[in-house]
């Protein structure tokens, strides 16, 4: 006896949209079993992971805060993935963005002026673009796989940040602690609501999602991206320049990741530290695919993923479950989603 996957002739829209929801439910069920096997009540875990984050004001705010970088990065990544270009170095682009923007804040420490914050944001975007351009140029000129180069540059970026906060950018008054000065108020991305912690980064993210939706569906450039990703021969037949598409996708992706980085250090952390990301750049890859590479999907997926992260923090406190369980859930979710997708496009047949 054996199992076979046969392609379905027709897949309905409804089924396509129900798949991620079903995948989410299955992941929850399996997650419940994992929690149960660890000797905790799955119901309590569900409360802590899903219900509380969605019903309590402070938790919703934390979710929005965590969703902000995920959204910005994942939207950027969707350009690359739509064009079948594998940028998996968003983590590094995020770090460089935070570093460049943060460096502006450190250098202008003590100065005042409305130009400081915009300059920081621009520096962050430019930094992310610059490091993302490296894999694109290497691919275009030398045919180097962008998967390897973009990933390896993550470590370069992380170590560069680590070196700089221990060296040139260190706060001289901080008793040798590896951290920069606290940013001035003029170098801080303002909160959306007085007293709240959610900052303007969220607006940038939602704006990027709306623009992306239009670009990909209604512009020549978006068509070129789709063509390059879906049928490279058709892109060539259409006279689209594959290299240009590659470069632009990496620039957009890197720029948005960089913006996410500077928004995080400026709006949330308030200074530079040896590590400024709990892996947003990698989690955003999952977010991008969870959202089916479509802008509305990614908006939704980034909130779901943020909820899991917050839930894991809750669970650590309330149920003494390790924080790493969040990764287990992320993995489960991605696994269920990919499985669900395969089952949407194919049907399972029991062979002889």
């Amino acid at each position, binding site marked *: 006896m054996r199992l076979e996957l046969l392609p379905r*002739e*027709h897949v309905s829209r409804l089924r396509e949209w129900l798949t991620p929801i079903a995948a989410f439910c299955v992941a929850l069920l399996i997650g419940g079993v994992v929690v149960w096997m660890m000797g905790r009540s799955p119901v309590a875990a569900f409360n802590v992971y899903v219900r509380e984050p969605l019903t309590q004001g402070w938790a919703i705010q934390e979710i929005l805060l965590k969703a902000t970088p995920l959204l910005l990065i994942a939207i950027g990544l969707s350009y690359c993935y739509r064009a079948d270009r594998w940028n998996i170095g968003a983590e590094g682009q995020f770090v460089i963005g935070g570093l460049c923007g943060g460096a502006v804040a450190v250098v202008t420490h003590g100065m005042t002026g409305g130009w400081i914050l915009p300059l920081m944001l621009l520096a962050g975007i430019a930094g992310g673009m610059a490091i993302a351009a490296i894999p694109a140029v290497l691919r275009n000129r030398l045919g180097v796989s962008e998967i390897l180069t973009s990933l390896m540059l993550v470590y370069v970026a992380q170590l560069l940040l680590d070196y700089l906060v221990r060296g040139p950018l260190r706060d001289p008054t901080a008793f040798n602690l590896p951290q920069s000065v606290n940013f001035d108020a003029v170098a801080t991305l303002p909160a959306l609501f007085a007293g709240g912690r959610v900052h303007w980064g969220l607006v940038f993210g939602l704006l990027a999602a709306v623009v992306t939706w239009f670009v990909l569906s*209604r*512009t*020549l*450039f978006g*068509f070129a991206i*789709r*063509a390059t990703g*879906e*049928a490279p*021969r*058709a892109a*060539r*037949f*259409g*006279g689209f320049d594959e290299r240009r598409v590659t470069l632009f996708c990496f620039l957009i992706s890197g720029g948005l990741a960089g913006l996410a980085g500077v928004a995080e250090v400026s709006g949330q952390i308030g200074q530079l530290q040896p590590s400024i990301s709990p892996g947003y750049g990698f989690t955003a890859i999952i977010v991008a695919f969870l959202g089916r590479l479509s802008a509305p999907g990614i908006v939704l997926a980034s909130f779901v993923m943020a909820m899991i992260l917050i839930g894991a923090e809750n669970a650590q406190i309330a149920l003494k479950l390790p924080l790493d369980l969040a990764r287990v859930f992320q993995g489960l979710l991605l696994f269920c989603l990919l499985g669900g997708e395969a089952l949407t496009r194919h049907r399972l047949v029991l*062979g*002889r």
Partner: protein
Amino acid sequence: MVKRWFLRFSVMIRAPPLVKGIGIGQSAAVIAPPPISEPPLVVLEGIVKRFGAFTANDHVTLTVREGEIHALLGENGAGKSTLVKILFGLLQPDEGIIRWQGKIVSMADPDAARQLGIAMVFQHFSLFENLSVLENIALGLSGRMADPVLARETADLARRYGLALDLAAPVWSLSAGERQRIEIVRCLLQKPKLLVLDEPTSVLTPQEAEALFITLEKLVADGASVLFISHKLDEVRRLCSAATILRGGKRVAHADPRQESTRSLAALMVGSDVEDVRRQASANPQAALRLRIDGLSVMPSEVHGVALKAITLDVAAGEIVAIAGVAGGGQKELFAAISGEEGHITAGRILLSGADITRQGINERRHLGAAFVPEERLGQATLPRASLSDNLVLSLPRRESASAAGWLNGGTLDAILSAIIKRFDVRGSARNPEARRLSGGNLQKYVIGREILRNPVLLVVNQPTWGVDAAATQHIRKALIDLAEAGAAVLVISQDLEEVFAIADRIAAICNGELSEAFPAGHITREDIGLMMTAGERTHPQAKHHPESADHAA
């Protein structure tokens, strides 16, 4: 699993060869009871196969007797492939049964079919380019190694059936005909009782096809049966002793092709309402040159691609020039070089209406009035998952398809799509469906219509009607002829000799990246073209064949 496979084949090898078991020639008649009482080798009864709302096979019955070459005739889309896939266990029927030598069997998968003694040569070969012929044969037979034993066995078999093969040659160096021989030998090594060939002659020159027929006749004389799938009537009448004809998924007739005329078979196959499109040759020596290719040499961009060698060709306004040739002769590379898609030009030049376009990209060439229809409908001419209106963007001038800021002009695209649908009778489930949702014929009409509506001065088409149903084929050919009559230059690259003779004013042949001279269609025969299609092996194809063709004409 591996063990089971191995056991099966080791049993097969030790057991006496099945073909011999049936007996060679007369001995079979001695052992076998009178043919009337003998059940047919295989019977497919009342086969129904549906794909969603579409019924590919509608209560089809097919009977193949022992020792016959049975033709399965039908247009593209008539349901031949579906039926054969069911026979070979690749698809499961929704209704109907299969009897093998009188017993009901279920073909759960190709393994089951192979165990019964069915072997199949597909239209598309599954061979590893970088491996040798012998290695490829061994890979197709589980449990066998590319060792001297297999080499001897293969060589014996190849000699017996007249299948010339160099076992040590790497596959990439072989022609399509030679590749097909590998697949056939691989099948014959399994000692099949039934050999199924899916459109085997589509990649062969007329001479190679004749050699294949002789092989098949030898095979049948040894007691095996052949199911020969084709839509070429002359071949079927030459080779087959029985024919099952499908149309629109139904069996419309069972006939003895030797008793029928080509015309009566054609009427059964396509229905009587399809008229034959034929070009009235109209040479106008004063017509302006549209396309001039002058000593063009191109390095292929793919590893095992064909290099083009000093190609020279002229196409004048109002003229249809066809390039014949078997697959892999350099058609793809020539098309890419003329369209400017890819390929590294090392020598020569291409002129369009007198302007040198050798170094220009595909869009600049389009801007000068050229239009191109590539070989692959899905994935090259269109994005499978994009709508038809979005797919217009691929070949439309940028300033028409999008605003200066880069926004797509939805209204313009929609209007152009409506015009194409109306004029070229493109039928789909929706008005503006995704390209992959259209049938081959409708998608091809859309792709050709998209280019013709741009009123090009030069249209270059690669395989205009490959895999397209009869009605769409005639529609497309008519559109090409009309375009030429309206004054455009048309260059058609086609493997279909019938098509080449139906529409071309002048015909050239391509082989091994070399292009012959283009001869007026009325002055050469199919045999001449067949020789030209293999001419790459000879030194001076033109010098050799021109006088011959003149003789034929006289």
